[in-house]
């Protein structure tokens, strides 16, 4: 199997998984909007939670993966790790868009304010900005070796920075609702709502995997094309 065939296999499988998950996401919409009870005190807006929390999870997962792949790249120096790290960062930016738009839309009716500078909101905003910087830096560098090294450094620095930002704002003040899912006794969400949320988490996680696989294949194919062009010129 040539590298190109391998990349095409990734592309095909990623597209299949993404397609399946888009259908599943439509299913989540139907279930969340029509078959999940409306919360008594928060009203329909509470249902935003079923897309906001899973999207936030996927975004943070994506950025954690970028950070870990960055460490692995500097250790093993395998260019595929860099391609995967970049892929995960881009997918993370996409999920961040969902997280950062649905969050305020949920906050306005429930908290009474679009935005609040609490630890989680602030950290996620800065994670997003860090990775926008990561992407811009990648775009501004042309040498693939240099680009891989520099973006790995930013990825690792970002991974270490996030706990610091979290703690900074924690010292400042905090207001975000505590996790309602993982309480030791019993989940505080009623069964129907919990199932919807868990299904949505699963769908968003697999959607991340699908996007990541596609974007990784795209990165590999671009590298191959660039190599071919460089070869043709020389």
């Amino acid at each position, binding site marked *: 199997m040539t590298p190109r065939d391998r990349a095409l296999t990734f592309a095909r499988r990623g597209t299949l998984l993404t397609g399946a998950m888009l259908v599943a996401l439509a299913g989540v919409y139907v279930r969340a909007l029509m078959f999940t009870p409306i919360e008594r005190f928060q009203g329909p807006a509470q249902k935003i939670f079923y897309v906001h929390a899973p999207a936030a999870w996927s975004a943070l997962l994506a950025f954690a993966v970028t950070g870990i792949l960055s460490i692995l790249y500097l250790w093993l120096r395998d260019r595929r790790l860099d391609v995967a790290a970049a892929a995960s960062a881009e997918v993370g930016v996409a999920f961040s868009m969902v997280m950062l738009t649905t969050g305020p839309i949920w906050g306005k009716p429930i908290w009474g304010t679009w935005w609040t500078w609490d630890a989680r909101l602030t950290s996620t905003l800065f994670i997003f900005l860090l990775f926008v910087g990561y992407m811009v830096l990648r775009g501004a560098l042309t040498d693939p070796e240099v680009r891989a*090294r520099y973006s790995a450094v930013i990825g690792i620095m970002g991974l*270490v920075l996030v706990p610091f930002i979290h703690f900074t704002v924690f010292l400042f003040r905090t207001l975000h609702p505590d996790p309602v899912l993982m309480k030791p006794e019993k989940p505080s969400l009623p069964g129907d709502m919990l199932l919807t949320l868990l299904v949505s988490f699963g769908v968003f996680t697999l959607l991340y995997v699908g996007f990541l696989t596609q974007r990784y294949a795209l990165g590999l194919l671009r590298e191959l094309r660039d190599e071919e062009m460089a070869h043709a010129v020389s």
Partner: protein
Amino acid sequence: MADLLRAAAAIALKDLAVEWRTKTALVSSLAFAVLVLAVLFFARDPTAVGAVDVAPGALWVTFTFAAMIGLNRAFLMERDNRALDGILLAPIPRTALFLGKVAANLVFVAAVEVVSVPLFVLFYDVPLWRRLPELTLVIGTATFAFVVVGTLLSSMVVRTRFSELMLPLLLLPFLVPPVVGAVQVTARVLAGRPLSEALGWLRLLLAFDIVFFVLSTILFTATLDE
């Protein structure tokens, strides 16, 4: 270890000597600092907000912005004529290059701060002289934090197009913990309260210093060509 520090000192002295001959970056950073201090004084409603209330924030915005102007200089001057390759050919550990650049940047930013603080007292009329030791401690720990990270990032962004735009974009997220911490401590110092009230913030600053100094020193060698 002694060799490492001697090599680092040589690099720092070279940088400072070059800067001292032209003083371009120093003069522009200083002028910029004065401008920011003056502009921020007017960036408030004087009937509602006293100058003392915005003073800590103004001080740290001034320091970080003025520093950012100077930070790119350290590696920009190595980019022209590929001077960096010459340094890398020298038989010195690569860590020495980073430590030297950090040291030179620290001196540079300290120079800007030494001039800015008296002006700050003058402009904002803050009761500062009795709390100078505490203030020096805060300025020292926070400045170290952003100079270390800034030096690492500037070593990378000089290889890009639009490096002057790229540095703030990448550096500002890293300034959140040190600058927020520094503003909080400075505000308590200026209000005449004991330093023990801001112990949590001081710990945060110190932890940031240690973690990012070690991390940046390690990662710097990874940014250089093999």
